[in-house]
């Protein structure tokens, strides 16, 4: 198999995404929204349990309330998706706080953000918010715990990525003791 020397469109989407925190007021097209949400729930999940639940919010009043209780949302967005862990479907049996299901919620949010980017939109995952207030605003039952609020919309400024740690610092091959940079 010969590998293409140009990155595929998908790789361009992966490598071109960055957090978008400033949005134009333009609403999200309903058909685009449907595609984003489909991409979100296409994410992998431990044991295919899909211990997640999502609330897509576009109502201006609810958006204002959510932002007021979420210091991590910097600018108003036309769409906020609350990604929740469904504790009633926890992967583990012991009812501990930590559960693989939390990782699955994160994977779904990453799918959502990449899908948004591929549609010319942008978004930011936000973990700085008051959980019990969001629970109340969205009328979430107790077993649905909001984990991430993803604010999404049309970017109001050019995308810019913050620097990454050097790949040689965070990636090694075969064993951690192997500092051979040949692969890097």
């Amino acid at each position: 198999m010969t590998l293409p020397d140009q990155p595929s469109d998908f790789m361009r989407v992966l490598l071109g995404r960055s957090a978008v925190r400033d949005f134009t007021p333009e609403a999200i097209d309903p058909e685009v929204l449907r595609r984003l949400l489909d991409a979100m729930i296409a994410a992998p999940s431990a044991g295919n349990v899909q211990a997640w639940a999502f609330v897509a919010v576009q109502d201006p009043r609810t958006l204002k309330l959510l932002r007021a209780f979420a210091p991590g949302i910097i600018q108003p967005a036309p769409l906020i998706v609350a990604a929740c862990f469904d504790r009633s479907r926890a992967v583990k049996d012991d009812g501990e706080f930590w559960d693989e299901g939390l990782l699955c919620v994160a994977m779904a949010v990453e799918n959502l953000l990449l899908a948004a980017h591929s549609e010319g939109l942008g978004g930011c995952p936000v973990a700085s918010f008051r959980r019990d207030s969001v629970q109340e605003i969205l009328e979430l039952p107790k077993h649905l715990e909001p984990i991430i609020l993803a604010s999404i919309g049309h970017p109001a400024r050019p995308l810019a990525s913050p620097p990454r740690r050097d790949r040689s610092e965070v990636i090694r091959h075969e064993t951690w003791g192997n500092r051979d940079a040949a692969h890097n």
Partner: protein
Amino acid sequence: MKPGGTVTQPTTEEVTEELVLLATHLLNCARGLFNEPQAYGPIRCLDAARRTFIIAEKAGLRDERLADIRARLDDFMCGPMEYHDLSDFLDELCAALLTALKGSDVLSSAGGERG
């Protein structure tokens, strides 16, 4: 802006709503700081200053130097998260703010501040 180029003044109700939401934001920041990394504290204050300027501008503030400062705050908050020296940046902003305010007619000479 309206198509004719005139600035639409918000109603008192709109400004009041923004202020109430800002107060809510501030209280949530205050509580959140007990759980969040300490380094977030200055960032939350900086962002609250930015949000306050935005409301003031909506309410009619027209001051080029203050608008420049607000734009720098926007760039910081909405741009990529980089770990440059925040205390230097804040020193710079406070100095710029003092210069702007000394020469600005935003501050009236009448009366004293009331708590």
